[in-house]
């Protein structure tokens, strides 16, 4: 996978070709906020709760799906779509600094 450097909120971070961070240690809230702005998402406390949940699952190497997020107790699936319209998991993953869900190919 090709990595390149991008600057979010004045911080150099390593990203893949699609702008997903390749190292969660480089993430902070300011970085997340700027990625969210680029995606057209205005962040609220509820948005950040979801981000925290995604990062926690990622650190535990637990694969994510929309249904799983909906069963997490943090948001319902309908809420998830309202918070991050049009592909909620791929957008919220980008904001959270974790890879988007992928398959083997």
């Amino acid at each position: 996978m090709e990595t390149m450097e991008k600057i979010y909120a004045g911080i150099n971070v390593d990203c893949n070709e699609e702008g997903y961070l390749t190292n969660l240690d480089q993430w902070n809230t300011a970085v997340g906020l700027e990625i969210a702005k680029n995606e057209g998402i205005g962040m609220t406390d509820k948005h950040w709760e979801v981000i925290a949940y995604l990062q926690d699952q990622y650190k535990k190497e637990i694969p994510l799906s929309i249904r799983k997020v909906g069963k997490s107790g943090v948001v319902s699936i309908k809420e998830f779509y309202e918070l991050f319209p049009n592909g909620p998991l791929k957008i919220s993953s980008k904001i959270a600094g974790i890879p988007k869900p992928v398959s083997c190919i």
Partner: protein
Amino acid sequence: MKELLILGAGTSGTMMANHLVKKLPKKEWTVSIVDQYKTHYYQPGFLFLPFDIYKEDQVKKVGKKFIPKGVNYIQKKIEKILPEANKVELEDETLNYDVLIIATGSKIAPQETEGLLGPLWRKDIFDFYTFEGALALRNKLRAWEGGKMVIHITEMPIKCPVAPLEFTFLADSYFREKGMRDKVDITYVTPLSGAFTKPTCTKALNYLLEEKDIKIKTDFAIMEVDNDQKQIVDYVDKAIPFDLLITIPTNMGDAVIERSGMGDDLNFVPTNKHTLQSKAHQNIFVIGDATNVPASKAGSVAHFEAETLADNIVLFTKGYKLKEEFDGHANCFIETGGNKALLIDFNYEQEPVHGTFPFAKVGPLKLLKESVFNHWGKLAFRWIYWNMLLKAIPIPFVGRNMSFKGKIFDIKSD
């Protein structure tokens, strides 16, 4: 005598029985294996059944034939695992163990999607991840006169993650051969953001979708099947109509894992991704589809896991530290239709790339490129499965860990 107990006699369980009967001293250890079913299926063959490429008897055999002499084979239902007591309850007896291997696999759970098991199930809605489902689909396709075919994935993880794409490619060939491709509209629907999600694979393989006129709908998370309107609907009321739906329902680990309180919300058992020891109990190991490791759920992965796990079981029984060896290695053929296939070889860290396998330059198999030779490789694999893989006979020149030999890193970003 100490007891080593294997739960499940599918691909993983059978391989482990064959490994361990050779490696554990007979004077100290009894190896037992339990499965409720008499039949052992060659699951990669289910892809070919709907298209009349394989016949029924090529994909199933009596499972007991592959359990070696010296292993105690028990055909009974497993009710519950009691890890704190080192016991397993079967339908009519309780077994004790010193070491347990969970090889209970994964299966489709169509009941998890509203409306899937409705009036259209196995009439206009099919799966091919079960023997019965693949046969029902075969019978449907033999007589089908065309319309909107939708191939759909519910959610990840699924076992054999490329199979839905292979099915799509084979369907295109099947209808071309029948002279009716123009009567069929094929759409591939995925919850992921593309048919391919790795940049190398997108660049190397996207032409297949265009060439075969396959429409793609991405980011689709199914909420329910509308049986009246014959469409699948997502959580924001996006609807995709179908005449014939081939779906891969949610995949879950065996119900015994849930009954035993040992799995996550999909019934997969938390497992160390390098040693294959269970995270909750030192004397329990997990292999194949039953684990929650981030490797693909595939037979080749189980084969590579088995080689590491066999060594680690021996180390564990002797009180030594386990090897943190398994690297998520997978080696999988992908049918692309028209008697061609490609081969991908990857692991936890390294995505599929170009090259040759297993030897640099000489190959003879090509990585990430279509070839007829690769297709014969996939078909030949059925023989290798029944005669070598299950019997824990090593495949020459193919190691348990992914090798960089022969790999060519020439797919660059634009």
